[in-house]
């Protein structure tokens, strides 16, 4: 069992500006440790060393998109048990259900408020923890 509190977030986002803002928000407001990667391959390079508590993934990315990145990361033991959160602007009808089917724990919609982003991530983490506790009986 991992640590009950959330520290390390692996974040994959192809847009450099957004990557910068999200990282800044999570580090400065939420005091999390963030590994920000520009692509799936970057993420796979760092994931084992980093050992993330939570995966935060953009969905629409060139070459390897969010769902594929998630599958790739989940194949690594270091990220297998970490809850995945999609942070995306692609939220057409039906998208949410699709994400849930992929095993995504929650979705954050762009544009988001960087000041409350950390709180939101915190809540998601708590929910994840309590679900895990229930499952464990």
């Amino acid at each position: 069992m991992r640590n009950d509190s959330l520290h390390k977030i692996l974040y994959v986002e192809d847009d450099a500006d957004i990557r910068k803002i999200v990282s800044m928000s999570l580090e400065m407001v939420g005091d999390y440790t963030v590994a920000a990667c520009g692509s799936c391959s970057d993420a796979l390079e760092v994931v084992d060393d980093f050992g993330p508590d939570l995966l935060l993934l953009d969905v629409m990315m060139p070459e390897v998109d969010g769902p594929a990145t998630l599958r790739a990361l989940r194949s690594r033991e270091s990220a297998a048990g970490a809850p995945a959160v999609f942070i995306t602007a692609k939220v057409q009808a039906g998208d949410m259900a699709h994400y849930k089917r992929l095993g995504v724990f929650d979705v954050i919609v762009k544009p988001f408020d960087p000041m409350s982003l950390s709180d939101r991530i915190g809540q998601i983490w708590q929910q994840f923890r309590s679900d895990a506790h229930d499952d464990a009986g």
Partner: protein
Amino acid sequence: MIKQERHTLAYGVAGLLILTFFVWTFNLLFGIQNHWAESNSVTAMDKDVHALFDPWRNLNRPGNDVLENYEVAAQQQALGRHLQEYRQARGRLDMHSRSQVDLSDYYRDMDAVALEVETLARRVLDLAEERESLRLAAADPAQISAAETEAATTMAQMDQAFQSGLEIIAGMDQLLDQRLLDLDAARRVGVRSLYLIVIVALFSSALSLVLLRRTSAQGEALRSGSQRLNAIVDNVVDGVVTVDERGNVESLNRTAESMFDYSSDSVVGWNFRRLIQPESRPLYDAADFQSRSQSPGRISEATGMRSDGSAFAMELEGTRISVEGRPIIIHIVRDVTERKRSEKRLQLAATVFENTSEGIMITDRDARIQSTNPAFTAITGFAPEEVLGQNPRILQSGMQTREFYEAMWKSISDTGHWHGEIINRRKNGEDYTQWLNINSVKDGSGQVTHYVGVTFDISELKASERIKDEFIATVSHELRTPLTSIHGSLSLLDSGVPAKSPEKSADLIRIAKDNSQRLVRLIDDILSIAKIESEKMKFHLRPVNLGKLVMDAVEANQDYAQQFGVHLQLDTGVENAWVLGDKDRLMQVLTNLLSNAVKHSPEDGVIRVETVHNDAYWRVTVTDNGAGIPESFYDEVFKKFAQADATDRRKRGGTGLGLSISKAIIDRLGGRIAFESVPGVRTCFYFELPIMQPHWDVEAGAERIAASAGFAAHAD
């Protein structure tokens, strides 16, 4: 015809017989009447002849006794009286002229004898007087005796004459009696013949009566037969028109009357051709019903003409027959307007069935496929012979659940109808989405006889809907992305969190600024592409000097290129390269191509721009020495939001719409845009526009472009 001759012969013989019979009867009656008359006459004659006997006998008397009684004077007186009586009787005989018995010889002899008797009687009386005188004078007895002897001799002569007379009378009487007997016999024969005639007549009459009755019964039968036939012909659904050998109408039945809207009276005597529309007459003439005595002639498509001149489609059949030795051409006329109409309707329905783009499948009540149309084959790939008799489930893709089909059949059995989208499988295994409309077909008693499925392939519609949805999703995503950066950076700045780090603050400010610009470009491009695609973008067509425009574009983009450390190099400058186009739009294309090249060029890269031409086109080429385009991405290059390497694009602020806008503009100007790429070496984008010809005026050029681009350009 033989029968006819027999009839005539029989009538002739009968007539001759009757004539003979009449002559015979008349003769007979005439003969009887003559005999009768003659018989009367002869009887009268006989009576008169008998009446001659007495006066004749009396005439003999005076001489006989005179020598005894000496009464000469009295005797002379008596002789005169008896002569008188005889003459009267004899005179009556002359009055019977009608008798065929010729008694004239007897009369002559009789008259001669009578004259002799008279003469002798007078001599006797004279002698008796002489003897008396002698006696009184007491003459010589010899003398007296001589006188007496002479008298006696004379008396004997007289007696002889008298006897002759009696014989003559008796002869006459005998002749007459014989004649009477003859006449009687003849009359009896005549009467017997008459009886025979009467019997024959009676028998003939009876026979005639019987025959007549039979004939009249036959006549009656014939008459009623003919009436019956007329009634039948009148009520036949087809028009029946009879025409003589010259083509003149003799009769119309009631149906024909109402068909042509004429009464029989007004049409009889017309040539039948007058009842046919002039265009149809050659057909009628060619059919030549006159010579069709064996097999009827037929015209299936003629046009009849009613009394008001209106036309109707008719079918015509003609046969020549012979009635009472006279040819009659029977025309059977059928009004086929309704049939033609329904044939046309059926033809139309069949044509629609064959040519509609909607697939049609008809099954029987047990859902066995009975018929399919070509569109069905086009959609499913199944030829009719491959599906006839099969259940439509051969089309199932397995993409629908059992409940789906149960609901479908429940709807069909409850309401007779179902429609909806369904994914089926083509013969080649490909799944496709179709709109399917199923209706049950019922007969008069409400029993389902067939099901009709009408379907059209909406795969493409679905695909284009999906493309549209994807475009909207992409646009939404593309707009949200810079907005996220702007909103995020401003929120962080506003919160004062990064205040401690001026570097971070500056970064955030730059992010907000860059993304604001990107958002503006994005919105411009999206509007551009929407306008072009909906053909609302206005093009101002004018002669444009492409050479000059290229130089201007290179110069305008130098600063931008320098930001990325890229060099723009104009290889071939052309002073005059005239095309017909919209200067601003062409500048937009050039800018897109140049900035695209800059974005994909490495630092210190060189972009070469050339303007060249062949016989027909000016070509502008922009070549960079960047990474090139992977072959797998060739098809995507001009598509909207295409992103071979979006990381790179975002880094340099592209919208992913530039090339698709450029292609739309060049297409609209009747030109061509394309690229060549050698991965890792270079990429060369170029566009071509027709060389402006000196004789083109703007408007003609605009029309030419419009024709080649398939829409109306706005020239002003």
